[in-house]
């Protein structure tokens, strides 16, 4: 069985990367004002950290054959709970310890909410679409009720915002270019999940569960435990996203934070070449998928296209991505 080189297979495997590179070259040439500025590229990363974190966690869930529609609402709920915890802590004790505790608290709250989804799905046998649709409604509603439909603002003067507003300064341009810590968080999570997926027994079990649940069960793998973990991991990612987002904005608005994030996250996963049917997927693909989506938004703005058209362009890209990754249609 010699491996022949096939263009279709090559495109299927590397499609998202090829698309990203070609698109980068295109915008670099076509919109020099915008894309010759390194800040544009920086922003591409820094503005998409929260969606990116969620999309990375979502990749794990989707590989396991699941889906999570509740992430946007979960982000808002985690955000309002976390920030009000921060504000309460600020009253007692030092600012830095309050910030640290609250950041950990947010990640913890996200993990718990994710685990709740996981338990409903695995123990009560509710299909993931329905279980997380319930989460979408309930989490948002709880966030609204808790914040009275309003915005909770961080009372930390500058410590809380540090993760999004300070970082490493690269020697680019006169003043240098700041890469915020949040970007490193995103990269670290991507590396960690990539390792988890490809290089650990858990990762192999996850692929097995998503690809052929029966075979996984007959290989003495606890299917429920693997699935529960994927939702918990996603919840932890949402917690990190809530931390980063609330730091960037210095506040959480219960009505709007995270709205439609579930769709952006799922879109990035699909564009990255992960199969919605489960069992096949990759973290790096999702990472590129997030950047590609972000770049499209930036380009549309640069080209002066009305925001109303964004959906059409993004939708078209998703369709093309799915057509490519599915490969030649089998009968």
């Amino acid at each position, binding site marked *: *069985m010699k491996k022949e080189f096939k263009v279709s297979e090559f495109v299927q495997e590397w499609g998202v990367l090829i698309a990203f590179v070609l698109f980068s070259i295109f915008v670099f040439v076509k919109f020099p004002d915008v894309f010759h500025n390194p800040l544009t590229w920086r922003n591409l990363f820094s503005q998409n950290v929260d969606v990116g974190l969620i999309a990375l966690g979502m990749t794990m869930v989707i590989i396991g054959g699941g889906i999570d529609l509740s992430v946007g609402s979960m982000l808002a709920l985690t955000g309002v709970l976390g920030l009000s915890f921060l504000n309460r802590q600020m009253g007692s004790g030092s600012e830095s310890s309050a910030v640290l505790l609250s950041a950990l608290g947010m990640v913890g709250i996200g993990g718990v909410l994710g685990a709740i989804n996981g338990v409903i799905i695995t123990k009560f046998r509710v299909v993931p679409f329905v279980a997380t649709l319930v989460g979408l409604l309930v989490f948002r509603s709880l966030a609204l009720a808790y914040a009275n439909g309003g915005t909770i603002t961080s009372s930390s003067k500058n410590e809380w915002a540090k993760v999004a507003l300070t970082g490493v300064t690269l020697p680019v341009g006169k003043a240098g270019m700041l890469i915020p810590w949040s970007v490193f968080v995103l990269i670290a999570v991507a590396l960690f999940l990539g*390792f988890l997926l490809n*290089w*650990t*027994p858990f990762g*192999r*079990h996850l*692929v*097995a569960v*998503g*690809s*052929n649940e*029966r*075979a*996984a*069960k*007959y*290989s*003495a*793998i606890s299917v429920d435990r693997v699935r529960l973990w994927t939702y918990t991991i996603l919840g932890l990612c949402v917690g990190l996203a809530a931390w980063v987002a609330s730091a960037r904005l210095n506040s959480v608005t219960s009505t709007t934070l995270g709205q439609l994030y579930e769709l952006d996250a799922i879109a990035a996963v699909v564009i990255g070449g992960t199969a919605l049917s489960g*069992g*096949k997927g990759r973290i790096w693909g999702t990472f590129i998928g997030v950047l590609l989506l972000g770049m499209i938004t930036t380009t549309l703005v640069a080209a002066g296209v009305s925001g109303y058209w964004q959906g059409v362009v993004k939708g078209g890209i998703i369709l093309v991505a799915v057509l490519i990754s599915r490969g030649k249609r089998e*009968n």
Partner: protein
Amino acid sequence: MVRLECQGVVKEYPGVRALGGISLDFREGEVHGIIGENGAGKSTLMKILSGVEEPTEGTVSVAGSLTKLKNVRDGMEAGIAMIHQELNLVDHLSVAENIFLGREIAVGPKLNRREMNELAAQYLADVKSDAKPTDLVGSLPLAQQQLVEIAKALSCNADVLIMDEPTAVLSEREKSALFKLVKRLKSEGKAIILVSHLLGELIANCDRISVLRDGEFVATVQASEINEHELANMMVGRELGDLFPVKSTPTTEKTLLQSNSLQVRAGEVLGFAGLIGSGRTELWEEICGLRPGEQSQSKNYAESISNGVVYVSEDRKGAGLHLEFSVQDNIVLPWLGKFGKVVTNRKEVQTCAEGWKEKLSIRVPTVASRVGSLSGGNQQKVSLSKWLEGNPEVIILDEPTRGVDVGSKAQIYEIIAQLASQGKGVVVISSEMQELIGLCHRVVVMRDQSFAGELEGEEITEQAMMKLAAGVQSA
């Protein structure tokens, strides 16, 4: 020494008593065959012995001591490995990852891919597989996947190996390699349980054979003291007439279907032999318009049906039937237009299905019963009814008796002979050579997606077919 023993094992599912008190023992250095019709309880018993299911009553002992096998892990730890009838592999993992699934070798948190690949290569060599440890399982042909499944069981280093229909998808060459391996494992002191419905295979390779019928134990016999005929009678519980009906002589020379050099004539049974992957199924799916290709006689299957050419799939559960549908809904599905243009006349549907139930003696409480609850033989009869309802001229039967018990087999052979004597053209694609010899007027042998030769009448023998299928030059 007795490696594994079950005593008074009963298994009840809601409304069904699958096993009614089975006591058997499996000894070191012995191949113990288990035979029975479909639905006799073979697979259920194996699931209990390997820990997939727990018995309702009764006990299992491993190496002399009572052991509760609550799940697959318990079974593995007790040294019992099972090769499942339906492939239990993950398409998106590599061969090595599949072999070690659930028992990965890791250094700290990180997989040790190199060691897994090296060990996997040894097990693959043991089963004479051409697959590489790094190949994706989904890219391998079915027979290779079966060998990977066997390698996976070997890698557990188990004392007891349960093989549930291991040869169903293997070619003759791979079968003989498998049985050589079985002999070696036996000499190493393993206890091997071989579940099969192929009488000859069991007699040739087992020391003892136990017969199950309707969930009850019938007898355990020495393989050396029994022949196929006696064994079949024990299995079915009645005297089996000759399995194959008399071949009728075609009365006309009329050709019903022509595709390049291939002809299907009225009143004949045309056999298609060849190894797995030789392209038999693909050729006929192409001819029927089920897959695109040069051979297509119709642009889609609907056109083929209206031309009177129907195809009964080898994959009953996947492509042949809707398991969740009732018997009647399955039978009328392609012909719903006949039962009312807008609203389907349920009464007529029921009458039609009852007609087929009668004609093909489908054993089912009512035609409203779910097809998924039927035995393989009865499912196949429903599948036949579904396509015969359209009164076709040419019927293509792909592995018509796979997973079908002996009793139903004889009935299906009878139906095939009848169809031919009514002047229909019947194409039988089969991996069971006895079947082709017993049924067919002509046999086309395929190799590597093309015709290797054609045999007629007395020329149809196992040796002749094998030679053509394997590409051996006759001296």
